[in-house]
């Protein structure tokens, strides 16, 4: 059982009151809060060794290099990568997907499969490749309750070159059966990319156990700083990829006629990196490593269960995805037919300092296909409490009474 009081003490913003009310933060699916240790780690870089890594021989540079490489090691360990060389720092998961889409040798008529509820970041790069290269993009339709249809996938994967799927959807919190998807894809000689932006902070990801070929996640959803992310790939596959961004820090040497690329991971990390952010991300991973993910999941489920039960009492409310909270991680996304849900988010914020997200959550394609205007999403994380959930339900009840 996780101790929320102890956890909340680590987050300064949760101990600050706005307009005489505490901040109730239910938007972790978009951006998680940052523990004080992450902020301090970043500050330490700027205060004590704000130098370039690798290239600088001085003590400050050496210290910065050590910290960045420590972060890489911690992250490799966190996802159980075979080697820290398989960890490539990016700005976010979106950059990781773009790196893959632009570095992998896709050819005309190569078939790429994605699901019907991908975040724009795992849709637009493929739509662009469809335009530029002529790949064939196929959409795997979900079941009625928005869960993954393995049977349908098994049929569609035949002849596919690549499968790029979300692990846990930011739309409804449903986690796709990654292990099975990867097994089926590999049997059909297709490589698999897993978008772990949403899952990385809520469940244990073991890339070796999953046998996933490529994977990416963002730092900002897992207690880390903004502008940080990781792209993972199996070493052998990464070595085969041709980086789409080159320049400083990616080459061993150059002449006026030629250049020699560095090995992985450096060949993908062009230009000066976000060192403070990377160090902060390493600290976030260290912080998260103190917890048992099963306990985090149990905590989220407890709150999700309460919210689901209470929201189900309102006949006008439709929850996106399966009704069973066990299948929706820490996300409850709901809408009311023919209603713009923005005002609900605004009113909750005005009335009780409750931060929730409204809109189409970067999954416009799904909303358009279902003809749903928008929704409001509550996303729970380890620092949220039952009391906060009760305040949310009480405030929402008041609001719903006037509509």
């Amino acid at each position, binding site marked *: 059982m996780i101790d929320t009081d102890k956890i909340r003490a680590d987050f300064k913003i949760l101990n600050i009151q706005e307009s005489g009310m505490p901040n109730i933060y239910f938007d972790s699916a978009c951006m998680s809060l940052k523990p004080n240790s992450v902020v301090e780690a970043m500050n330490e870089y700027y205060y004590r060794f704000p130098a370039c890594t690798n290239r600088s021989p001085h003590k400050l540079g050496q210290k910065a290099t050590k910290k960045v490489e420590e972060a890489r090691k911690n992250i490799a360990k966190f996802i159980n990568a075979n080697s820290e060389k398989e960890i490539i720092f990016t700005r976010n998961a979106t950059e990781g997907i773009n790196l893959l889409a632009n570095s992998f040798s896709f050819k005309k008529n190569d078939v790429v499969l994605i699901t019907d509820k991908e975040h724009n970041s795992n849709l637009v790069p493929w739509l662009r490749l469809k335009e530029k290269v002529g790949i064939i993009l196929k959409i795997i339709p979900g079941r009625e309750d928005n869960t993954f249809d393995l049977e349908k996938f098994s049929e569609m994967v035949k002849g596919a070159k690549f499968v790029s799927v979300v692990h846990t959807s930011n739309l409804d919190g449903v986690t796709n059966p990654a292990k099975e998807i990867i097994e089926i894809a590999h049997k059909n000689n297709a490589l698999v990319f897993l978008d772990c932006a949403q899952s990385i902070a809520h469940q244990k990801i073991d890339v070796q156990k999953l046998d996933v070929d490529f994977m990416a996640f963002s730092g900002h959803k897992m207690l880390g700083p903004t502008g940080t992310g990781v792209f993972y790939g199996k070493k052998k596959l990464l070595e085969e990829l041709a980086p789409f961004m080159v320049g400083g820090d990616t080459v061993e040497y150059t002449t006026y006629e030629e250049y020699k690329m560095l090995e992985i991971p450096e060949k993908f990390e062009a230009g000066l990196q976000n060192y403070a952010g990377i160090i902060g991300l390493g600290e976030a991973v260290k912080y998260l490593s103190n917890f048992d993910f099963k306990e985090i999941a149990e905590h989220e489920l407890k709150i999700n269960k309460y919210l689901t039960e209470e929201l189900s009492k309102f006949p006008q409310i439709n929850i996106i995805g399966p009704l069973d909270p066990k299948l929706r991680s820490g996300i409850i996304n709901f809408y009311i037919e023919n209603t713009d849900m923005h*005002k609900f988010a605004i009113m909750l914020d005005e009335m009780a300092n409750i931060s929730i997200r409204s809109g189409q959550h970067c999954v416009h394609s799904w909303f358009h296909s279902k003809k749903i205007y928008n929704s409001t999403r509550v996303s729970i994380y380890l620092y949220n409490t039952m009391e906060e959930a009760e305040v949310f339900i009480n405030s929402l009840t008041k*609001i719903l009474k*006037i509509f």
Partner: protein
Amino acid sequence: MPCIVALIVFGIMGIFSASQRALAKEAFDCVFRRVTFRPCNTGFQEKVKGKLLAKVLKHSSFLAKVLNKYYEVFSWIFFILMVGSTIWVFRGVYNFYVFGSCNGLNSSSFCAFDPSGANNKITAIGGNTSTCGITQKSEKTVTLKDVDLSSFPTKNIGSKDTVVFIGCYACDYSRKAYPDIQKLIQKKNANFIFAHFPVKGNITDTLADAGYCVYKDYPDKYWDFNSYLFSADKDYVLNKANLNKILGKFNFDLKKINDCVNNHETKTAVENQVKELNKTNIYGTPTIFINNKAFVGPKPYRVYRSAINKFIFF
């Protein structure tokens, strides 16, 4: 409709606040999309509605429900009120320019006059007429209709513009307005008729008689004499003992003027003049008619200029 209201409100507030300017920009975008027959997809309306409803809901669930149900109706009401108040503001600005007061005429200080002669007094500074026990009348009732001004001092006869100044040497407000009127007369070469209306009795009555006699016997020097009475130190002018000194200053024949002042006919003529002035429904000095438009109390010079230039439309 809420977009238009928001655009106007935030547009005005945006002059002073950058954060309101951003909202005004959003509102403009919304209005622009509407007038170009596109849906307002900025979420701006929902944002404004949400914020308003939340604020009301904090206090009353019932009121929030009513506001939500009739949001569009309320928006229209506020829009109409806003247009109305905007027109009212512009009217106020116009009034201030042409009448010297946002409320239009009949709002500034003047020397109140009780026609019975028993309660003549001067209003408090700021126009609080209640202090003198006389109810302020409307300038609309003050008129030159059927008033014979032929016996009053007149200059620039034949001009297309006519200015009539009814004032009292003892009235500070008359003294304040007189130089402006002189400036106007000089500039426009207007026909000018001066009528002294003694509001404080005693010495002002004597000065009225003296003025009558001076105009009768020395019409060429009358205007300098009149200007002196308005511009010299008030206490000096209003001291009866100084009257001969003043008359002497202009080389008038003192005996002749004094005989005239003490003459019964003069008193009758001046009384008749006052009776004639009472026909105007005068209730305070200065009362100035510029091409028959009445102004009671001193006004800024631009007001007189606007009147003579026919800039007053209503």
